């Protein structure tokens, strides 16, 4: 009889101990999307980030944080060992990762802003989750005000954005980058594509004759584009208005992060400089 009571009391203590430790865990974020990492840092949540993927490289202090893998390959054991209170994932291929994490009973929030509106909502959602709602609303409002001051251009140059080299790929107006181009006063030569980020036919680039070409991936130079057979008749090639990653950091226009302000400024400079 005594033994049974002892076991019972012992179990109770352990069980209450368990739940107590959950409450005392504190905020521990694991982030597998570089743009969400930037947002969390801007919302002053940097000190609670315990794990990121290799692509999360901005701000610089993220480089010292534990790595849980890269975009497509996540180390689930690592994430579990970090004992996160929430994991923020991206979309696309990471949808599978999100469902895996949910199966492991980890609080997972997939966030994948595909438009500028989505981006503002994402800031609020993240702010709610990390208890920085006030700051999130402030940041979102400020960004909205700045961006709304754009989109007032009249002379829109024809722009071709190349996001990949083989096969060559571009973006549609509905993509995030596409929206930024519109806001910065550019006329994307591919307004509609089967997908937001899609393979395109080089013949169509020649036919649509862009005035500006922007390359957002490393490895391709301006000279290589100018040397492409058949491309010599394109206005951008004739005038040399081809911009690479050394002219504009691709992360500031490809990521739905607070740095789109920098991105917009860069695009406007490229589109409208004389």
């Amino acid at each position, binding site marked *: 009889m005594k033994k049974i009571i002892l076991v019972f009391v012992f179990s109770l203590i352990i069980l209450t101990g368990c739940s107590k430790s959950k409450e005392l865990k504190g905020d521990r974020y694991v982030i597998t999307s570089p743009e969400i990492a930037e947002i969390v840092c801007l919302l002053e949540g940097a000190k609670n980030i315990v794990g990121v993927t290799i692509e999360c490289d901005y701000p610089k202090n993220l480089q010292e944080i534990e790595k849980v893998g890269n975009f497509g390959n996540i180390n689930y054991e690592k994430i579990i060992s970090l004992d996160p209170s929430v994991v923020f994932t991206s979309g696309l291929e990471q949808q599978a990762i999100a469902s895996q994490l949910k199966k492991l009973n980890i609080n997972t929030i997939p966030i994948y802003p595909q438009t500028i509106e989505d981006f503002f909502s994402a800031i609020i959602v993240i702010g709610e989750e990390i208890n920085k709602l006030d700051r999130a609303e402030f940041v979102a409002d400020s960004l909205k005000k700045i961006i709304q001051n754009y989109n007032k251009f009249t002379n829109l140059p024809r722009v071709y954005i190349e996001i990949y080299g083989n096969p060559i790929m571009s973006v549609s107006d509905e993509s995030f980058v596409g929206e930024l181009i519109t806001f910065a006063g550019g006329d994307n030569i591919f307004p509609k594509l089967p997908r937001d980020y899609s393979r395109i036919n080089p013949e169509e680039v020649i036919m649509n004759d862009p005035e500006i070409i922007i390359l957002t991936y490393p490895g391709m130079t301006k000279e*290589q584009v100018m040397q492409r057979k058949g491309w010599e008749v394109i206005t951008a090639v004739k005038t040399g208005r081809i911009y690479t990653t050394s002219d504009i950091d691709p992360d500031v226009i490809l990521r739905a992060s607070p740095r789109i302000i920098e991105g917009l400024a860069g695009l406007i400079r490229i589109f409208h400089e004389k």
Partner: protein
Amino acid sequence: MKNRKWIFILFGIFSILLVVFYLFINKPTTHILIAVRLPRIMLAFLVGFILSGVGYSFQIMLNNPLAEPYILGISSGAAFGSILAGILGLYLFMPLFGFAGALISLTIVWFLAHLGGFFNRTKLLLSGIIVGMFFSAFISLIMYFNQQDIGNIINVLMGNLGHIFSRREWFYFVIVFIISILLMLYLFLLSRKLMILTTGDIIAGSLGIDVKKLRRKIFIISSLLTGITVAYAGIIGFIGLIVPHIVRMISGGNKRTGIIYSAIFGAVLLIMCDLIAMNITIIEIPVGIITAFLGCPFFLFIMAKSK
């Protein structure tokens, strides 16, 4: 045979119509026609020409109806080379690295096939398969660690005739084109000789040495040519396998001119597949997928016929 004459005429008409259709579909401007379409159709022609000719030759050399240009592992080496250049961002060097990969795998297969001091078909086949597997494994490794470059890798592994030439590269390609046609002619002569020697009644010792020499030469020439196709266009399956069979079905068995017919028919077939690949959906799909879809009904047809 009157039948055969009609087939040639029909084929000729079909080919001309196909080329016209290919060049003028979607109404390109004259500039695009000359600067983009023409190079592309030339590449398609060359790749189809080589793959079908080499396929025919291999089926004779290895005495195996399932032989095709990629069976000796050169394509995996070339694909590996191209992919390596691609993920390193050296887009302009993809054909060069591809050809280097072909040369390296050719050397390894050659070396392995001579281990133990003698060279025969079985050893060649085995060496080729081993080298092919080895490079395929490497490609898988690269794929796993470079998922952001999966588009590039798929382009190499599933075939892409839309290679964007730089102006200098195009100049070199024209030279490569001419050399390849000449090499194919040489391959034709070698294969014809091999066919004569191996279908004869006399199997003597000295004949054996001649046959061995021939097989070696055929192997090297074919590997160089296959390497060229993979370097520019990636891996396009089934053309090298099915076309020789189709030609044999029409002409009734191994003929001495079979390799030429095979090469020409393969060139036209690949141009047709490329036409389909470019226009069947809004975005272009890799041409290797179209050729793969051809392979299945073809073999069903063979099975049905052989009953």
